[in-house]
C-alpha cells in the first residue's frame, strides 16, 4: 500500500558464532532492532563496547508508527550521529491548533525559546529513523546486527544469560554478560522471563490512516478536533509527515469492529467525510489500535534489562513512546559501558531503573490525563470536558486545561542518588539531574551549539573570563582530568575568544551571546559536571578539581 517508501530487505548473514561448538560469549546482546535497540547499539559502540543485535525480521518498521520526535530525542540522535539526517528529512512543526465542533478554540506555539540547535518537534515516519540507524550501524565495527535471528529461550545465570536463537539455518546459542530487551510492547523476552507489565487498558479504539495528498491542502501543523461535525463527534487528529503524507487519527470508540474498520472502503469513507468530496487523496497505510498505560515493576532483572515499550507503554497522545524509549537508552548506555569496563559497580545499573521508572511514571501520568480528556469515561466527564472546550472559546483559564496531549519533555532526575546537592545558591532550571540545556557557542571560530561539544564522556563546564584565566597549574589539572581512567573533559566557557594554549581533551567554547552563562546562571568561576548523557551531576561557584572528582564518584555509584 505504501507508495512513497521502498522497504529495504536486509540479508540474513550466517555468523561464525553459529559454527562454534560451545556458545560464544558476548558482552551485550540486544533483543530487537527497532529505534530503541539500535539507538542503544550505537551508543554502546561509541563507548567502545561490542554489541550483538538480534532481530526476528529483516526490514524496518512496516507503517509510519512513531512519527513525532521531540527536541531531546533529536539531541540524543545528534550525539549518536543521525540527528542531522532526521532533521533534513523530517517536517519541523511548531503550531498546534485545537478545534471544538465547527470552530478553532485554541492555538499554541511549541517553539521553545530561541538559540537552540533543535526545534520542539519534527515529524518523520518511523521507518526512516530505523533505516538511518541501520545505516549508522554499518559504520560501526562494534555492532553486529543479525537479521532473522529470533530469541526462543533464555536462561539467567549468575554472571550472564544463555540465549537460544533460531535462524533460517537452524538454532544456535549465545552467552551474554547482559541482555537488553528492546523488543517492544509485546516483548518476547519479557514473556520468556515470566515477567509482566501492569497498568490500565483503555476501552477505546483508534484508526490511523496515512494519506497522500496535495501539500498545499494543510500547513505543517498539528490539528486536533473535539466533537467535529465530520466524524460523528469523535476526536480526530491531523499531522503532517514527509513525502506529502498526512497522519489522520480517528477515535472509533470501543464498540467499533476492528475488522470492519480496516476495510479500505470504510477507511476511505471516513477520510472522505473529513477532507470533503473535492480533495484527492490516496491511502498509504492504516492501522486500528487500542492502547494502554502500563509498566514493569523493575527494568532490571539480574542480567536482563528492559528499555522502551518492553519496559513501559503509554497511549500515543503526547509522543512519549519512542521519545522516552531513546531516553532510556541514553540513560543506560554509559552506565552499562562503565560496569562492563569495571569502572563502576554493577549497582550503578539500579540507578537506571530508578531514574527511568520516575520518567515512565511521569509519562504514564501525562498520557493517562490526556487520554481521559480526549475520551471521557462517563457522561459527567464528557460534560466537564465539553464545558472546558466551550469556555476555552472566550476564557484564557480554560485553554490551559484543554489537553489533546501534553507534549513530551525530558525528565529531570532531581532525586537521583547520582546527583550531588548544591552547596551554593543557583537560579534557573539547570539543577542537578536536569538534562543540559543548549545554547549557541563558537568553537574554533565556527558557529556551533553547546550540546554538540558535550556527551559520551563526563564533561566539566568551567565558566571563565579574561580576568580569571586558568593558570599553568590549573591547565595541568585539566590535562590530568582529561586523561585519567574515567576521563573528565573540560569545556572552558568564555564570553570572548582567548588566545590560550589548551591541553588535549580540553576545549574553549566562546559564549559570544552570553546565552549559555545566563541559562546556567553562571559567573566566572562557576563549574558544572555533566554525565555522558548530558545530565547535570553537580555544580559549584569556584572550580575545584577535588569536588569534581567526588561528584564523578557519586555519579558512578561509588
Amino acid at each position: 500500500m505504501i507508495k512513497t517508501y521502498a522497504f529495504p530487505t536486509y540479508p540474513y548473514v550466517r555468523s561464525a558464532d553459529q559454527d562454534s561448538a560451545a556458545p560464544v560469549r558476548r558482552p551485550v546482546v540486544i533483543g530487537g532492532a527497532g529505534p530503541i535497540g539500535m539507538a542503544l547499539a550505537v551508543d554502546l559502540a561509541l563507548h567502545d563496547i561490542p554489541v550483538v543485535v538480534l532481530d526476528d525480521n529483516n526490514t524496518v518498521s512496516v507503517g509510519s508508527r512513531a512519527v513525532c520526535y521531540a527536541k531531546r530525542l533529536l539531541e540524543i540522535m545528534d550525539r549518536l550521529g543521525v540527528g542531522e539526517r532526521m532533521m533534513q528529512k523530517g517536517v519541523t512543526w511548531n503550531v498546534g491548533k485545537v478545534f471544538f465542533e465547527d470552530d478553532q478554540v485554541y492555538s499554541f506555539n511549541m517553539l521553545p525559546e530561541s538559540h537552540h540547535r533543535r526545534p520542539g518537534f519534527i515529524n518523520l515516519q518511523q521507518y526512516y529513523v530505523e533505516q538511518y540507524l541501520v545505516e549508522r550501524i554499518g559504520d560501526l565495527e562494534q555492532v553486529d546486527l543479525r537479521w532473522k535471528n529470533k530469541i526462543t529461550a533464555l536462561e539467567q545465570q549468575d554472571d550472564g544469560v544463555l540465549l537460544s536463537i533460531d535462524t533460517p539455518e537452524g538454532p544456535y546459542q549465545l552467552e551474554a554478560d547482559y541482555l537488553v530487551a528492546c523488543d517492544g510492547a509485546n516483548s518476547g523476552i519479557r514473556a520468556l522471563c515470566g515477567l509482566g507489565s501492569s497498568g490500565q487498558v483503555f476501552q477505546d479504539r483508534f484508526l490511523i490512516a496515512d494519506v497522500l495528498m496535495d501539500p498545499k491542502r494543510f500547513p505543517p501543523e498539528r490539528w486536533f478536533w473535539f466533537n467535529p461535525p465530520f466524524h460523528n463527534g469523535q476526536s480526530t487528529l491531523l499531522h503532517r509527515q514527509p513525502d506529502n503524507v498526512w497522519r489522520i487519527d480517528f477515535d472509533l470508540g470501543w464498540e467499533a469492529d476492528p475488522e470492519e474498520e480496516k476495510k479500505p472502503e470504510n477507511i476511505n469513507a471516513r477520510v472522505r467525510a473529513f477532507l470533503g468530496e473535492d480533495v484527492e487523496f490516496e491511502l498509504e497505510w492504516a492501522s486500528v489500535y487500542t492502547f494502554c498505560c502500563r509498566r514493569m515493576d523493575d527494568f532490571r532483572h539480574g542480567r536482563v534489562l528492559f528499555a522502551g515499550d518492553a519496559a513501559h507503554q503509554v497511549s500515543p497522545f503526547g509522543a512519549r513512546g519512542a521519545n522516552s524509549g531513546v531516553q532510556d537508552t541514553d540513560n543506560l548506555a554509559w552506565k552499562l559501558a562503565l560496569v562492563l569496563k569495571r569502572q563502576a559497580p554493577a549497582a550503578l545499573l539500579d540507578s537506571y531503573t530508578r531514574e527511568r521508572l520516575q520518567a515512565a511514571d511521569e509519562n504514564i501520568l501525562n498520557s493517562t490525563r490526556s487520554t481521559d480528556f480526549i475520551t471521557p469515561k462517563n457522561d459527567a466527564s464528557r460534560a466537564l470536558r465539553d464545558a472546558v472546550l466551550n469556555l476555552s472559546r472566550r476564557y484564557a483559564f480554560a485553554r490551559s486545561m484543554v489537553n489533546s496531549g501534553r507534549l513530551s519533555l525530558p525528565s529531570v532526575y532531581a532525586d537521583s542518588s547520582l546527583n550531588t546537592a548544591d552547596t551554593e545558591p543557583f537560579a534557573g532550571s539547570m539543577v542537578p539531574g536536569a538534562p543540559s540545556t543548549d545554547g549557541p557557542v563558537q568553537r574554533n571560530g565556527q558557529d556551533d551549539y553547546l550540546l554538540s561539544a558535550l556527551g559520551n564522556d563526563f564533561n566539566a563546564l568551567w565558566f571563565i573570563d579574561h580576568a580569571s584565566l586558568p593558570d599553568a597549574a590549573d591547565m595541568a589539572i585539566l590535562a590530568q582530568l582529561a586523561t585519567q581512567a574515567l576521563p573528565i573533559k573540560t569545556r572552558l566557557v568564555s564570553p570572548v575568544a582567548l588566545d590560550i594554549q589548551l591541553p588535549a581533551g580540553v576545549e574553549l567554547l566562546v559564549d559570544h551571546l552570553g546565552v549559555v552563562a545566563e541559562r546556567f546562571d553562571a559567573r566566572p568561576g562557576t563549574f558544572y559536571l555533566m554525565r555522558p548523557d548530558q545530565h547535570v551531576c553537580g555544580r559549584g561557584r569556584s572550580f575545584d578539581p577535588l569536588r569534581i572528582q567526588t561528584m564523578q564518584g557519586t555519579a558512578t555509584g561509588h
Partner: protein
Amino acid sequence: MPQLITDNNLAVPDDYYALLTELYRELEPAQCQDVNARLLLLLGNHIGDMDVLAEAARIAREHLPAASTLAKDI
C-alpha cells in the same frame, strides 16, 4: 495553609441558593450537567488553591447514597 471554609461565609446564603436554582430554571437534565460543569470550572479557577479544592472534592463525595438508592429516588 488556607482551609476550606465550612462555616457560613455568605452575607445572604438564601441569595446564593436562589442564584443556583435560577441557574437551572427551564433547563433539561443534560443542560444542567453542562451548566454545573462550567460553574465548577469557573469557581475552581477563581479559588486557585488545590488544597482547598481537594478538601471540597473530598467532602463532596462523603456520605453519598448508594447508586441503587439514588436510582430509586429518580
